[in-house]
């Protein structure tokens, strides 16, 4: 593959990831949301594969494999399992409506591009536009966490943030040293487990995983 094609493919994957993010923001049902997340992870793996192939850095392959295993297979299943176990509604509650969320995510994308612009101009790697996209995905993930009321959707938001982060990591720096990546994955895993446990406990104590009920501790 020549340079141009690979650059285009990288951009394509990144854009697809962003697209899944935006779609996730607009999704009101739980299962499609999880599907979107695994789809995004697939694109992330693809991106990793392309970068690994182009740059010839073998450790990115490991990353690619990890992503496929953990984020495409394990994580969605685990989320579905938790969902089944604690009987979450199929509906996703939004605190601001879909148009509002979409507008906000559009704003986030704009902000990301604006912020990343001076950085991109000095960069020489092919994956320049990935910085802006990964920042957008992070911000949109955070936005999702702000607008979703259910504990599970918050988790998905966090995981999508992580995806954006890895997009940035892979694209910008051809993957950080492997140890970091593995560690990060590990951390995410543990986080998800804990979140799962707590979501369970929250369910027990509050009869719903709607986190907006968790409002006892305030001033």
């Amino acid at each position, binding site marked *: 593959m020549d340079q141009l094609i690979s650059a285009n493919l990288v951009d394509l994957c990144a854009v697809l990831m962003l697209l899944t993010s935006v779609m996730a923001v607009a999704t009101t049902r739980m299962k499609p949301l999880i599907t979107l997340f695994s789809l995004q992870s697939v694109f992330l793996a693809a991106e990793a594969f392309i970068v690994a192939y182009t740059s010839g850095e073998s450790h990115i392959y490991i990353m690619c494999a990890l992503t496929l295993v953990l984020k495409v297979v394990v994580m969605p299943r685990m989320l579905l399992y938790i969902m089944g176990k604690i009987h979450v509604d199929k509906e996703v509650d939004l605190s601001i409506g879909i148009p509002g969320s979409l507008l906000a995510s559009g704003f986030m994308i704009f902000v990301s591009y604006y912020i990343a612009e001076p950085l991109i101009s000095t960069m020489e790697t092919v994956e320049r536009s990935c910085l802006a996209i990964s920042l957008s995905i992070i911000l949109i993930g955070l936005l999702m966490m702000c607008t979703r009321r259910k504990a599970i959707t918050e988790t998905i938001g966090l995981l999508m943030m992580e995806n954006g982060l890895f997009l940035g*990591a892979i694209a910008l720096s051809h993957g950080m040293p492997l140890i970091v990546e593995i560690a990060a994955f590990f951390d995410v895993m543990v986080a998800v487990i804990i*979140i799962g446990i707590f979501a369970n406990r929250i369910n027990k104590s509050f009869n719903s995983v709607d986190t907006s009920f968790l409002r006892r501790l305030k001033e």
Partner: protein
Amino acid sequence: MNADILVLVAAMVASSLLCIAVRNRKAVSTVMPACSLLLLALCLNLCVPVLGGEVVDDGVFWMDPLSAVFMLLVAFVGFVASLYSRAYIGLEAEEGVVSRRENGVYYSLLIVFISVMMLTFTVRSMAVVWLGIGATTLVSTFLVGFYSRDESTEAAWKYIILCSVGITIALFGLTLVYASTVGVIDSDHALDWPALMEHASELDPNMMRMAMVLIIVGFGTKVGFFPMHTWLPDAHSQAPSPISGLLSAVLLNCAMYGILRFYGVSEVLDPGFASTIMLVFGFLSLGAAAFFIITSRDLKRMLAYSSIENMGLIAIGFGIGTPVAIAAALLQMTAHSVTKPILFFSAGNVIQSYGTREMSRIRGVSRSMPFTAAALAVGTLAIVGCPPFSVFVGELSLMLGALDSGMAWAVALTVALLAIVFAGMARNVFPMLSGEPPEYARDLRGFSRTAPLVILIVATLALGLFMAESVSDWIGNAASSVTGVFP
């Protein structure tokens, strides 16, 4: 490989295993403080030469005076908190609030928590530091949500979500730092802090700027900077009191350590950038905390806000950015770490005795539990910066640092806000001491209840009143290693 560190790591692993292995309720509550005392001793053995300027530098590990200061604080407060846990959790176990299994889990988690925090400061790569900070969150989540009450679950939930978001943001910052080192540092050592420092001026400045914002906001969430502080009062108020003390006194420092390392790099590359951000967050935190404190109702929440206030002060010190101010900030941090547990532990005593955290319902502490009342009063006066306690020296040297660099306005603002903090703390704490105690309030005594408080009070007094030349040199060394590879 440095033998001392290896011994320390081995001791950590061994004590963690031991604490997990011991099943007996009484035994584990003795073994665990003993283990943390051992860790403290080993840590002293390791850190004292480092503080004097002998940098540990081999493969995975890297310790300079800055990390030694942080590590010593963790070991010290960790020990005191373990000792206090004996009394605190012991009583809960006796009363049946805490089951035998939970009791074992508590001590195992506690020693792991302490160990992870200590390990965070020994490593060379900032990526691993990040990992350590992340791991502390995970471990401590269980401690925060230790009680299976609704509120505890809620607090733990908020804690883990917000802190995970925070460290994710910080990791993105790290990624950008890594990206900015491309072509400058060999990629295997790109995030090694000594290498970063060495090549600081060659990094991509634009990238570093953005990275610094992400890192300060990200780790700042865990430090408790306003407005990312929101998890902090919940977690501190819901955790068992020894854990609250530990969270406030050293966990926040861990995240601060993460910021500091990059702060140093950024200040070399781009002087005045990171420090300005720190200054802004410092004043935001100090100001917001001051107003939160005035009308607090919950004792431990108020103490949590006071932690935010102190983190703000420390950030202001780094924000000023001169060596004097950085040393002052480190001193203030040390002072806070030594002083804040006094408050949380004595608050723990009060809460166990009165069965409430509502300050308006706690009256007559000085009658019902004189020692605790004295400790609470001393702790309050110490934390708001009354002499002769260490926070006073910290705050004064902070002011000196600010004045030294011509920032009289910062001093004026700080003084005004500190006055509000004082008024707020005094308004809330001191009425609790006076008045007529309710009948159900009882005095709680015991060695492991008293000893930690005495140790901490002596420590804060000693730091405030007398400081041997060598100790001030240590702080000076630590300060100079913030902005430069030492030596």
